């Protein structure tokens, strides 16, 4: 199973969605995923793959494909600093 499939499976599970509704092209907005849901999905991915996803990367994720791409890079041990840079000025996942 590639990262994309696993991401779709976890998003469907955590959001209590019909898996057929979640595609690689789905955006968080389309799936009704708010900032707190996003944090929950990242937690589930971290638990699943026993990895740490940096906060800066986490803040950049707004679609299934972005999550899958970021996850793949983290899993391959690649530098993710460009993702972190893209996230600069982005909205924090949670406030307060």
């Amino acid at each position, binding site marked *: 199973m590639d990262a994309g499939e696993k991401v779709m499976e976890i998003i469907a599970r955590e*959001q*209590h969605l019909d898996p057929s509704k979640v595609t690689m092209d789905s955006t968080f907005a389309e799936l009704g995923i708010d900032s*707190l849901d996003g*944090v*929950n999905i*990242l*937690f589930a991915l*971290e*638990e699943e793959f026993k990895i740490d996803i940096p906060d800066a990367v986490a803040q950049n994720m707004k679609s299934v494909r972005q999550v899958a791409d970021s996850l793949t890079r983290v899993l391959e041990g690649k530098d993710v600093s460009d993702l972190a840079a893209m996230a600069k000025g982005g909205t924090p996942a949670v406030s307060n």
Partner: protein
Amino acid sequence: MRRVVITGMGVFTAIGKNKEAFFESLTRGHSGICRITQFDPSALSIQIAAEIPGYNPDDYFPAKRQDLLDRFAQFGLIAAREAMETSGITVKDEERPRFGVVMGSGMGGAGSFDAGYHSLYACQATRLHPFTIPKIMHNAATSQVCMEYGAQGPALSTATACSSSGHAIGEAFHLIKFGMADVMLAGGADAPITYGMMRCWESVRVLASGNGNPSTACRPFSADREGLVMGEGAGILLLEELTHATKRGARIYGELAGCGMSSDASHITQPTVDGPARAIRMALDEAGHSPEEIDYINAHGTGTRLNDSTETQVVKAVFKDHARKLAISSTKSMHGHMMGATGAAELVATVMALERGVIPPTANYTQPDPECDLDYVPNQAREKPIRVALSNSFAFGGLNAVLLVRRWG
């Protein structure tokens, strides 16, 4: 002067999942105390509590909603739902800023705390679930109720242990009375029956063991009382400014006419006579009643040696000769000590007693104690018209809240 009436009531308790079932259990002296089922209590010296029997969150909330709700917030939402339904109120959009919520909780999301720490310390987890904070925070129930009903006015949470919902209702009452809101949902919710919490309470040595017979474990004011029994659940009342209620033709269950609050400023667990007595006098003064006009007191009546004898002295100090004429009962003998929810559930019991002219008994009363020598309505409900009643809440930490309610009509 703005007056405040009670136009909706909801409870979720071990002896009734709505107010009618609750009051029916109370009047027949039915205890909801059983062996703990939420976890295996075999290792505990105290293995009993008043749990909501057969509780299944799926009966009340979709899965996605449950993810963000600790058990205590679920209970709060369920009781709020009944309070809203029984009130028949529809809050218009323009009224929302004057519709608020005050709810108390002694322990907040105790179950989520327990689960989080278990994974952290026992299972060596290196990260905790991101919903932990939104579930455990004391204001979670208040916020969830605000969101559910679009209450955009004053909203806050109280955390004064056993008095939490007494204080919550008192605060909501004053917010309406002094013009900051017209409609308030007020009460409390708690779900403290976790392994960790039971261990904490066990060590204070104030819990009754039950000695193989859980249903009679809690015996307030009886000479053979052994202590309190933990409970769980929620109680919520809809409070409304009188003209707001009459304009919409609301059914009025009773008038909330006074609230007294005080601090013992003495000892972290041991109660005084003076502190609670001052709270009762303050409630009487605010409502403009003399002590002789009080017909019934729903006591704090935990069933501990110290609370019940001290509360008896408090009643004698305030009411003098009238102390022997008024009726006193502790419904904790049946629904257990629901902590931050208990004051609200007991106020619902008090209002229903006023409304129906039936005083719920103190269940499991077996023998008089020379230190508790008043009329505790032992074991049998009593039919008696009553006009004015008090509901007492005296917390660990010496923080007291007393509510005064009047029969309507």
